[in-house]
């Protein structure tokens, strides 16, 4: 999809942009996994690793934005090339936000705001598994430029949203039973929400992949 130009250097530049977005995706996936593990195990070391690597992820996003500008300025891309360049930059922005959500989870651990109980940890682990799977599937779809894989991500995000709602209800029930731990409850709610948002960012990235794969303009859906 990105290749086939008479100018092989243009092919190379587009492929390079694609690779850099995939690299950023790999790092974002690492960040989400590390943050989830840090939260469920209350591991300060892993949490610090996530926070320390945040600037690397942001730096990759900046590089991708600069590459996008250069491609547009020098190559005057049109049609599918232009849509692909814009879509890749939007995907990078979604990956950056997914990384930021992972950082929020990690900071909860670093601030030692109160370790969640067993029930909340279990819910968080479950949501983290779902969110991580979505993000991974989204990146596989990006790697293969596969619109059908991307469509699966869009479908399965609804499951994550439903699990988040159920987990939040359980959290509130436990809070009512033990109102003295309200601060822990609030932090736990933020962590669960961050995991749900990671799923949203994976879905928004998948929407852009569908755009590239199907050459149909898709509008980003509002966050739930």
């Amino acid at each position, binding site marked *: 999809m990105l290749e086939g130009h008479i100018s092989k250097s243009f092919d190379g530049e587009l492929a390079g942009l*694609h*690779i850099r977005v995939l690299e950023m995706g790999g790092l974002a996936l690492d960040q989400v*996994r590390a943050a989830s593990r840090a939260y469920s195990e209350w591991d300060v070391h892993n949490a610090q690793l996530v926070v320390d690597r945040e600037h690397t992820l942001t730096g990759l996003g900046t590089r991708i934005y600069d590459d996008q500008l250069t491609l547009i300025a020098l190559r005057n891309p049109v*049609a599918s090339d232009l*849509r692909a360049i814009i879509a890749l930059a939007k995907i990078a922005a979604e990956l950056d936000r997914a990384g930021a959500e992972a950082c929020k989870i990690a900071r909860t651990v670093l601030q030692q705001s109160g370790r969640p109980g067993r029930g909340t940890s279990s819910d968080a682990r479950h949501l983290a598994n779902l969110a991580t799977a979505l993000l991974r599937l989204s990146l596989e779809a990006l*790697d293969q430029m596969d619109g059908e894989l991307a469509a699966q991500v869009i479908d399965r995000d609804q499951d994550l949203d439903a699990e988040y709602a159920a987990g939040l209800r359980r959290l509130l029930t436990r809070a009512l039973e033990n109102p003295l731990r309200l601060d822990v409850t609030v932090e736990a709610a933020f962590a669960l929400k961050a995991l749900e948002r990671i799923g949203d960012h994976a879905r928004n990235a998948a929407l852009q992949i569908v755009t590239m794969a199907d050459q149909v303009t898709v509008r980003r859906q509002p966050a739930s």
Partner: protein
Amino acid sequence: MNESTSTVTAPGPAPAVIAAAGEERPPDAPLNLRPAARGPAANRLDGAVIGPTVGTVTVVDPVFSCRDVNVHYGAKHAIRGVSLDVGKRQVLAMIGPSGCGKSTFLRCLNRMNDTISGARVTGQILLDGEDIHDPGRDVVQLRARVGMVFQKPNPFPKSIYDNVAFGPRLHGLARSRADLDELVCTSLQRAGLWDEVKDRLTQSGTGLSGGQQQRLCIARTIAVKPHVILMDEPCSALDPIATARIEDLIDELRESFAIAIVTHSMQQAARVSQRTAYFHLGSLVEVGETDRIFTNPRHRLTEDYITGRFG
């Protein structure tokens, strides 16, 4: 959306970049991007079929209405069944690879192909509802109503004044010297040349720069009050600044005239036109609003051409 949850089997090893965190990943593992699902990119024309024209060839109240136009140069079939309208007060750009027939089609509109030995034009071409091939048609009058600007500026070896006045004199458009002066002045103003030449109208038109000569040719064309201006790669011999001035002039002129422009520059077509028609091997492949053609073309050949996947 496909709701299948079946596992997708990747055609090869899993990409190293997607390796899970915590799993062993060789530090020097290469990235493994999939080859394009469409196969080799060497020739994307394989299997591409032109078929009927994609898009709407007609416009409301056209100035030119062409139906099933065919042009033969001897045995060579240069234009194949092209139907296309040219709208009033808009610019139609015609793009396509070399030899695709866009200049040939342009020349049909003012019967310039009549001057080519062996050329045969069939089909219907209506100008304001009248067939330009009617036997009683005055082709000189036709070429006043349908002016043409060529790739290489071709001012007459006369003064700047006489270059512009030649056409109105020939067609009797001015009743007096004062009328002629006014017509020359207005035409040069509309062509954006008046301020540069008003003090040297008696000097030769061939002494001007390339960009000025082309604007002089445009002034000469509009002096005879055409309905349509045809432009065959009007900027290809000009530098970028002269090109930008001509393009700006085209944008002003389209408020009064219908303009059909042939160009090799897709960026120019995108900048100056409201409709774009893509020609390939003598056929009209696709026509549509310029912003749609360059963002989301519907025919694969159009997409391949404008993205530089074949030439």
